[in-house]
């Protein structure tokens, strides 16, 4: 079987993989939004570019698992730098995030441009990680993305009780003797993982939207955390599939922006249509 209803088999598999990423990003993003860390992954997202370029330079290969492993290392390193800045300087959090984001993106661009300028074979395609491009993904790549996403969702399902309590009332959780800081780091690490697996589809610049917009759209429809996570996952899934479909049809269109616009459209509709969630407003 090479096609279904005229759609190439590979496109279907890729769409399924990216759909899984969209779902997981919505679920995990919801926890980030509930913990008031909506943009926790943004600096890490911009830093992934360094990892992608460095992984390519070190290994000379362009296999997705290699590049994404590099991206994950860079993402975690950037979060580590953020922690260090908070711990050792008096720079405020918002500025620290902007510093890590801007400087790491600059380093990523420097590496990418250097690779391009030297004409290293295979280096040209790395720019696709800026804005996302799913056309080049293989079925194996999609399988990897789906597997990581499934593992992330499973982890959240296991620790849902813990994550929700820490997000709602960290002081109470700490009074129970829970390691709130560890749980917080785990959450941020999960967001970083989602940012990394979201990279091929949404790109470093826009992947943050994948963990922010579906959750806030879902929040308009429900007052229960569990339902919100599920809905956010579905909205993420629909947006991801729409992005893949659109860029399959329109040749030069990057997937990232399309996914974001789809999610934004669902958010706008949710604002208009959802039964008045706001008290008093």
């Amino acid at each position, binding site marked *: 079987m090479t096609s279904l209803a005229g759609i190439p088999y590979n496109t279907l598999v890729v769409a399924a993989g990216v759909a899984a990423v969209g779902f997981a990003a919505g679920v995990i993003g919801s926890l980030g939004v509930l913990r008031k860390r909506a943009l926790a992954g943004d600096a890490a997202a911009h830093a992934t570019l360094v990892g992608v370029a460095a992984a390519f330079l070190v290994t000379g290969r362009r296999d997705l698992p290699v590049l994404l492993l590099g991206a994950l290392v860079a993402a975690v390193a950037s979060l580590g730098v953020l922690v260090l800045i908070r711990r050792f300087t008096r720079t405020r959090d918002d500025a620290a995030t902007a510093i890590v*984001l801007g400087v790491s993106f*600059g380093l990523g661009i420097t590496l990418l441009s250097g690779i391009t300028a030297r004409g290293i074979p295979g280096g040209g395609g790395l720019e696709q990680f800026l804005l996302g491009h799913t056309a080049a993904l293989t079925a194996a790549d999609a399988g990897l993305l789906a597997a990581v996403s499934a593992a992330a969702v499973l982890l959240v399902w296991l620790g849902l009780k813990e994550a929700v309590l820490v997000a709602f009332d960290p002081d109470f959780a700490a009074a129970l003797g829970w390691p709130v800081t560890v749980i917080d780091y785990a959450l941020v690490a999960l967001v970083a993982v989602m940012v990394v697996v979201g990279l091929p589809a949404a790109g470093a610049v826009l992947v943050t939207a994948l963990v922010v917009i579906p959750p806030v759209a879902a929040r308009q429809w429900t007052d229960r955390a569990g339902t919100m996570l599920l809905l956010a996952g579905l909205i993420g899934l629909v947006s991801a599939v729409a992005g893949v479909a659109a860029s399959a049809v329109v040749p030069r269109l990057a997937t990232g922006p399309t996914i974001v616009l789809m999610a934004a459209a669902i958010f706008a509709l949710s604002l208009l249509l959802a039964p008045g969630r706001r008290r008093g407003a």
Partner: protein
Amino acid sequence: MNAWLSEQAAMHAWAIATAAVVSSGCALVGTLLVVRRMSLLGDAISHAVLPGIVVAVLAGGRPGGMLVLVAAVVTALLTVWLTQALKSRAGLAEDAAAGVVFTTLFAAGVVLVTAAAARIDLDPSCVLHGILELVPFDTVRLGGFEVPRAFVTAAAVFGLLLAAAILTWKEQLATAFDPAAARAAGIPVGLVTTGLLAATALATVASFEAVGAILVVAMLVVPAATAELLVHRLPWMALVAVIVAVFAACAGYLAAWWFNTSAAGMMAVVLGLEYFAAAVLAPSDGVLSRAVARLWLAWRVTCEDCLAAVWRSEELAADGRAEAPTAVSLWQSVAFRWLAASGQLVGAQGAWRLSTRGRVEAETVVRSHRLWEAWLGRHTELPLDHLHPPAEWIEHHLGATVRKRIEAEVGVQESDPHGRSIPPERK
């Protein structure tokens, strides 16, 4: 050959000059953004102005032209308004609201650029990180000279920002420091903030061709954050931020030329290095100087403890309960040796005695300790047997004036709550 070389040099010089002016403007605006904790908004605006720029270009505006500048400012204000609306109407947290707005607007911008790529002179990668290297090739004639168009725009915007900063400095300062008090004093806080946001948009759009939408974030925030670690007053901070930015522009461009890579990216990297250097080396807030200060304090405390221990053993010896102080750690044995070498202790290991100078120091420490215990006994519900430990670390922080004040409060006493004598002030 020579003419070609000097033409090359002129090209580089123009590119560097443009980068320097562009990042100076960003640094100036960024200073206010950073102290007002609005770095996130700077980030959001720099992304979000993209669709405004694209629409203006599609409508026939030239990059860097008036139409584009106005469109960028309008989009920036729209971004902020949308963020506020999502906060108040949809109940989103500030960062989530900003995240929704700027990613959406930026995505719209990218889609527009892609769709209109055939018709306009913007390409997606330029949007992301700019092409500083191409700036010198697009020139206008100005007073008989060929000047890069981007430089003219950047210089004009910088002039405007500088003038605005100088004219409204008092208002910006008051608003940044305490918005509520500023409002009470009749300063139009909303207008001042809107002005700052418009300035951010202007600085961003002027930088667009040179460094692109994302690296602007680094240009806005890093110089100011670096300056904040080095100096403590706002005017100085702005000046240092501009110097940091100009240095990054020059060094970044040259390094990029040397390594044959993106100049804008390298400028951001140099800014990062400058920030790192400041974080480690800053005179009072640097990691290094704070580590030295902590080490110095630990050393002083150890020396004072050693002197006090000898003093107390001499006090006990007077009661016939002699007990020679000994070093219990390497750190302390080094301290004992240093105190002997510097003439504060005489004698030998196991039989240290205080010199006259050492006695003054020791009595000051013991006096601090016992006065503090007397003070605690007066002001807190603390049983006698609990008095000792806290006084151990307070004694090293008491100065003469506060000691006098404590003495005045507890009354000049012969003895502390444990019944031991409080030595008189010797310094």
